[in-house]
Structure formats: C-alpha cells, structure tokens
C-alpha cells in the first residue's frame, strides 16, 4: 500500500549500522501527516549525509512552506551511508523518508536541492534505492516527478537525463505553484499522464523540463543550439525571485535534530543577493537583486526561532552580512536584547574593514566571542583586481590588527588558488600577506600569542559568472603552487609557527569544474562513476579522482570530447554555452564585458552604493534592489526566559 511505513523492516537493520539516530526522524519541528489527508505529496532531499543535509536552509524552508498547506504533505530523505545502503539492497528496504519512513517512490514529487554538483552521484543512489528508474525517459505515471533545485540547478544539463524538471532561483513561491498545477492535474484525473503534467509545468516558463529541448552539436564538439521540440515550450526558462522577504519569514519552526549535525545553530537570512560583483562568485551573480529583510522581521525571527528550538546560537546569514543597510542597529539591538543570557550571536564575516570588528565586538558583549574570518580571496593586489575583490593590503593589515588589539587572538584568512591569469607569484604573495599580518599583530599587541589560519579553496569556474569562459588550471600546477606556498610560509620559522595552513588538493576542484560547466554528455560520466561505486563525492575520504578520470576516459571520447575540453579549455565569446537557454537575468554581453575587464584588471563598483552598471537582472526580471534603512530600532527588552512553559493539561 502506498504511504505505508517501512520502519519495521528498517528497524531490524539499525542495530547493525553506524549512527542509527540519523535515520529515525522525530526531530523537533518535523511534521507527520496522514497519507490520505494530502492531495499533493512531496519528498524533499538534500542528497548528502543527514548531518550535512538536515541544517540546509533551503530544504527546511520548503518543508515548512509546503506543510503549512492542509492539502499538501512534505517529508524528507537524505543520502544513506554505504553500510546501510548495502543492507537495504540485501533486504529490499527502499529509500525512505525520515519523517514517517514512507517509501520515496510513493510520493508525487521528489525535489532535490543541490548546492554542490558533487551531490549528483548520491542522487543516483537515492533514485536507485527508491526503485525509481535512473533515466527520466524510463519513468511512468507510477513514479514521482523528479525536480532539481538549488544553485547547481542553474546548469542542470549534466543531470538532464536523470531529472524530470529543474527550477532556477528562489523556491518558496515556485513549490507552491508547482503544487497547484499538480493538484489541478490530479483532480482532473491525471489526463495525458506524465507527458501532460510536465508540459503544463514547462509552459509556466519557470520550470525547465530537459526532455522538451533538443541539443545539437557542431562537428568540433561544441553546442550548435538548444531548441524546444514541443509547441508551447519557451525558448528560455527564467529564474524565480522571491521579492518580499518580510512576507516569507522562514524557517519559523527550524528542525532541531537529535543527531549531531554540521551547524548547531538557528540561522536567519538577513538578506538575499549580493552586488559586490566578485567575479568568481556564482551565488552573488545568480541571486541578484539584493533584497533585505527588515530589522524588525530579523529580530522577530531570532526571538521566535530561539524560543521554538532551544538553540543557543544564532547566525545572521547572507552573502556579505555587514552590507545590510541597518546592520549596526541589528547587531546592537540584538546584543541588548540577549545581554546576560547564554545566547551567542554571530555574523559570518567576510568583509575586510574595521566596521566588521565593531559589529563583532557588539555581538561578543555577553562574553561569547565567535571567530573572525576575512576573505581577501587573492594574495596579490593584481589578482584581487582580476576577481574584483576590492581589498587593499593596507585595509587587510589594519583590519586584522584592530581585531588583535580588541582581544581576538586568532583570525582566519580565506584565499583561492587556481584563479584565472594566476601566476606562482600571486599565490606566494599569500605568504607575505600572512607574515605581515602576524608582524603587525605582534607589534600592535606586544604579544606573541596571536595566530592566523590561512585557508585555501580551489577555484571552480561556474555558469552565469564572468568566469564561465575561463580555463581551469591543471591539478598538478595547483598542487605545486600550494606546496611552494607552504614552504614560503614556513621560510620564516618564527612567523610560520603562528600561521596555520589548510588547503584542498586540486583534483576534486577539476571534477567539480567538469560537473559545473558540463553539458548533457557528462551525464554518462556521472552514471559510470556511480556504477563503479562513486558515493559521497563531496567527502575527501570517499572521493576518488581516479574513478572520475577513468569514467571520463571511457565515455567522453565517444562524443569527440574529453575531460580537458570541459575544464582547462577557454571558451570563446561566440560559443553556445550549455546553460544559455536558462535565464538567470544576467545579460550575457555584460558578463563577457566583465570577463574582459577581469583580464585587463579593471574593477567594477557595487550598485548598492554607486549607479547601476547594467548587469541586466533588474530590467529583465522586472525587479529592483530592495534595501533600507527602515529607520526602525529594536526595543531594549529581554524577550527570553519568561518562566516555565508548562503545557496545559490535555
């Protein structure tokens, strides 16, 4: 029977595996509804381990938005670890939801949120365990409609064979619209079957249905064109933008897990979008325009979320939190409200200026000091111009020194390696910068007890950014640069001892690059890797570069292309990119111009403070940036600890 719990079968496996708690559900904030009460049933997944997937904001928001509707039921599923996967296959236990332990294959819609492309193999595990055919073309009316979302969905071509649809952009309103369309179709008796419902979704122009588009290739392997193969299907699919964040104050009831997860805190998004224009940053490009949540809504969400969840840590999230027009009042207002309590507030800080330290000081007032992270991203002034990260060395030294003087003994500096036009020298400059940070810090504090951690991430060019045309650097070059940098940092023993060094190898980045800018031909590589045992590719202990290279070598030559063609090859302006028919609002000509500016080391201002530079988003999406100030102030009341909350007798 559909919707039946598989827990009795699962329960027998739980004593045999590690961390069974992650599979039992029962989280605070989770919702269990009778199967028959709903017209439309969604299963949502963040295709990674529970400990990573549960805190995901996107899934939590959609879960709550959907479950608030009486005629809708939404449950969650996560990737199971290989120990359980093997037992499930042996005993025939299907992929299940953690809420009611229902079989994933029983639902109407299966939504997967991808913030990284390295989750693709886990999607195949979930589909296969759910007994859903891996290829969308092989599915019938009895199978859920598989929908991809999240940032990676801005180029879903590598997974086009496996998903039925993809949604670009904000999900709050999109999931409800899809729900309404599916509900109406079901009420009519599901006319025309799977084809008909997918066609109805495609006609909204904001749901991409890959099967309704044909991709033609040129003899040299490049794409000739991508065109609809059905009447009524739009040439371009547009991203969704939720404009009024105050009208969508989610999560209201955050999920509080019993199992330990990567983020043990209540997160409030204080704005969406970013106009800083860092050229490597896909998130900053595809989430435009900037939309602020007002100071009063932020404070209300913090209050309600803490009271509901019992969390003692709050993160004020966004792509560049210090840029909120009323961030000063938000920080001092919240610090007032929670002074003397054991709530800790944090602002993941990426902006390199002294203002950030003031904010962090405010938030640390009740004695709970959180770490400070600054992200200059590039080691040399030159490379920072290329990536449009407008931070001078002077700014950085001054900011970090201020932090040390104010009692922080440890700061974290974040950089990238493998950036376009990068030379060995650009990377070695990171060592000089770190040395200067420690020297100035010691001078300012008169103490040797200060440290910094240099953390290096691998650059991956992403679709819908000015770097979408850029060639990637080879992993062996990246690894050699990192090795040289490490030696350079330790060339001065006294300074080197005060500097921690963390980095990632170049190999995973290259594969992420293949998946990020791949087209439909890459789907066969993903499938081969999965068949060869690829799982949890975002985890270094599970990722196998060899497996990916072998699969690419086995599959891609049949199409006349190879791994290098997708990764280290520079694209030309005229090339049709696999995601050109997917509209993020950004004007391709503007992106190209910004790419040319990068190559000539010309910087681009931020339209929050300076006039519009015509990236194209606002006019094409009929939106505009939404920022304060509202002028509102938070009242100096203590909203917590209002006595025992004893439930009324039933």
């Amino acid at each position, binding site marked *: 029977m559909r919707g039946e719990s598989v*827990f*009795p*079968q699962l*329960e*027998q496996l*739980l*004593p*045999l595996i590690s*961390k*069974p*708690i992650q599979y*039992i*559900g*029962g*989280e*605070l904030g989770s919702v269990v509804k009778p199967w028959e009460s709903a017209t439309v049933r969604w299963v949502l997944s963040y295709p990674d381990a529970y400990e990573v997937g549960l805190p995901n904001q996107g899934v939590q928001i959609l879960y709550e938005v959907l479950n608030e509707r009486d005629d809708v039921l939404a449950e969650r599923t996560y990737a199971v670890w290989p120990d359980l996967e093997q037992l499930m296959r042996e*005993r025939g236990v299907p992929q299940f939801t953690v809420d009611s332990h229902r079989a994933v294959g029983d639902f109407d819609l299966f939504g997967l949120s991808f913030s990284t492309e390295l989750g693709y193999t886990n999607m195949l595990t979930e589909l296969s365990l759910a007994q859903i055919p891996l290829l969308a073309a092989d599915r019938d009316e009895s199978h859920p409609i598989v929908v991809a979302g999240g940032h990676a969905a801005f180029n879903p071509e590598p997974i086009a064979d496996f998903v039925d649809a993809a949604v670009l952009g904000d999900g709050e309103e999109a999931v409800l619209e899809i729900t309404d369309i599916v509900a109406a179709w079901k009420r009519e008796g599901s006319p025309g079957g799977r084809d008909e419902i997918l066609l109805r979704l495609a006609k909204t122009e904001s749901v991409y249905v890959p099967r309704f588009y044909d991709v033609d290739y040129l003899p040299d392997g490049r794409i000739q064109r991508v065109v609809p193969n059905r009447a009524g299907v739009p040439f371009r699919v547009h991203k969704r933008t939720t404009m009024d964040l105050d009208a969508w104050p989610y999560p209201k009831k955050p999920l*509080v897990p*019993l*199992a*330990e997860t990567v983020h*043990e805190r209540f997160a409030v998004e204080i704005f969406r979008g970013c106009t800083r224009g860092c050229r490597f940053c896909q998130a900053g490009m595809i989430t435009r325009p900037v939309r602020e949540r007002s100071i009063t809504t932020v404070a209300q969400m913090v209050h309600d979320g*803490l*009271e*509901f*969840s*019992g*969390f*003692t840590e709050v993160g004020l999230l966004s792509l560049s939190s210090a840029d909120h027009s009323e961030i000063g009042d938000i920080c001092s207002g919240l610090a007032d409200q929670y002074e*003397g309590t*054991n709530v800790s507030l944090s602002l993941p800080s990426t902006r390199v200026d002294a203002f950030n330290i003031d904010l962090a000081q405010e938030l640390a*007032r*009740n*004695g709970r*000091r959180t770490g400070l992270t600054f992200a200059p991203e590039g080691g040399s002034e030159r490379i920072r111009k290329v990536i449009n990260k407008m931070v001078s060395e002077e700014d950085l030294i001054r900011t970090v020194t201020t932090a*040390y003087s*104010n*009692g*922080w*003994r440890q700061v974290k500096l974040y950089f990238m390696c493998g950036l376009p036009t990068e030379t060995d020298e650009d990377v070695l400059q990171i060592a000089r910068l770190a040395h200067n940070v420690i020297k100035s810090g010691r001078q300012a*504090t008169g*103490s040797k*007890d200060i440290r910094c951690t240099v953390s290096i991430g691998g650059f991956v060019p992403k679709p819908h950014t000015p770097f979408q045309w850029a060639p990637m650097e080879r992993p062996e070059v990246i690894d050699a640069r990192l090795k040289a940098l490490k030696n350079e940092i330790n060339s001065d023993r006294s300074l080197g001892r005060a500097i921690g060094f963390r980095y990632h190898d170049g190999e995973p980045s290259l594969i992420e690059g293949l998946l990020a800018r791949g087209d439909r031909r890459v789907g066969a590589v993903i499938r081969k890797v999965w068949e060869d045992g690829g799982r949890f590719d975002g985890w270094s202990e599970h990722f196998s570069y060899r497996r990916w290279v072998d699969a690419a070598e086995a599959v891609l030559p049949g199409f006349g292309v190879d791994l290098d063609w997708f990764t280290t090859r520079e694209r030309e302006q005229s090339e049709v990119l696999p995601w050109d028919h997917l509209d993020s609002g950004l004007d391709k000509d503007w992106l190209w111009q910004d790419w040319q500016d990068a190559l000539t080391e010309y910087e681009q201002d931020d339209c929050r403070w300076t006039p519009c530079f015509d990236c194209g988003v606002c006019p094409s999406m009929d939106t505009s940036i939404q920022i304060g100030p509202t002028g509102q102030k938070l009242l100096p009341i203590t909203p917590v*600890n*209002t*006595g*025992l*909350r*004893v*439930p009324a007798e039933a």
Partner: protein
Amino acid sequence: MGRTKNQPTGGQAPVVQRIRLRYTKRGPMRFTSHRDFARAVERAIHRAGIPIAFSQGFTPHPKISFASAAPTGVASEAEYLEIGLRERVDPADLCKALDAALSPGLDVIEAVEANTPGSLADRITASSWRIELPGVSDEQLAAAVAAFVAQSEVLVERMTKQGRRTFDTRDAVASIAAVSSQTSPPGVVGAVPCAILDLVVRQVTPSVRPDDVLSGLRVVADLEPSAPHSLKSARATRLAQGTLTPQGEIVDPLDVDRDPVAIGER
C-alpha cells in the same frame, strides 16, 4: 592585555535548587546516543524556560549531570539525571515542561527535589534488563542460561576505548532467567520465535552491558538466532536501576529524596 578582556564580564547566578529526574528512551528513541541525548536535553531545558544554572568560566556550561546512561540502541524505562537551578520551581511543573519540550519517546516521568547529599551515581549499583531475542526459541535460551549459570567465569571480548579487552561477565550477573515466550511484534514478515531474557547486572568496571551477557551465552552455549536475525538485533530494555539490596531487589535512587523518612526504616 588581551587576556583580561577575554574573561567573562558577569558571574553566574548560584544554584538554589537541585532537581533529580527519571526519564525514558522508548521505541526508535533507543537509538539516541548519550551525546545526542545530552544535547537534546540542553535545548529542551531552554525551550521549556527552565531557569538552569551555569558553571563559571569563559565558556559557561549548564548544570546537568547524568547517571550511568544506557548504551546506544538499548531502550530504557529508568534513566536519571540531575540539574541545578538558579531559581526555585515546582518539580512537578518542571517535569511536565521538560517532557513537553523533548521528542516523544524521550519522556520525563518523574522529578523530585534533591533533599539529600551525595550523587545519584553513588546510589546506582545494578540494573535490571529485559532482552527480546527474535529468532531464538524458549528451549534454546533456557539451555544457554543453564550453561551460563553453571560456570563460575565466562570470559568475553569487546572493543573499548582502551582497545580490545577480555573480561568476565558471569560475576557481574546477579540474576538471569529465561521467561515466557511470545511471537515477534506485528509488522515483521513471518512470525518468528522470540525468547525473552531477564537480567540483573551489577555495576562493575569495566562495565558489563546486556550485549556482553549475550556474548557470554554464545561462548557457553553457542547461542545464535536463526537468520536473518543476529544477537546484534536483540532488543534490550533497561527496566530499573538503583541500589541492589541483599534480597536482590533494586531500590529506585529517587526514593531517598522522595521520602527521606522511609529510607531510614529500610
């Protein structure tokens, strides 16, 4: 100096009342590890608005202490913890508030004010367990128990934090008995025999857990459930823990606080 700035600004309020609680781990919640439960109870205390006291220091911790926790995967009707409060509350209200703030299955069933010195841990010398063994017949189990009782020492091996260790399980077992039979619960495909074992095990070091006793039964009598069951899929429940009397009864550690006079009469 930066160092002085790192000190917390205000002192923490002192403990004015200590409450001892009994709680359960039922159904799927038996898979909660002790760490998981500790985190959950801390959050539930905040949600319930309980005026918990905090330790002094740079990173203040809530005043919560646990008495010997059941292993992950083992259900319990009798787990205990003690909390320190900065304001006095009615223990019965606290019990209801905390229970409502925890997931169903993690049920707070009693709260009493600590009237007596000493720690809960000092009052816990033994536990009684009930173990369901799907795939094991009554006769099989009875034979294994008889073989176990006949020994003066039953050595088993288990991985501990100190590495693989060998220890005796026989001496720690105060009583062991195979009890009535039943078939497995509904929902499992194909009814299988399910023997039941009742155990009272003393608190010793290294601790002897219910699964160690099952290993002991395997050692003395080759006890092995029919496939696909294994001794690992046995379902153990702690029914009680407390002070073991010479008569073999287990005294609830909250008895002393509940009625300080009664204990004097024992």
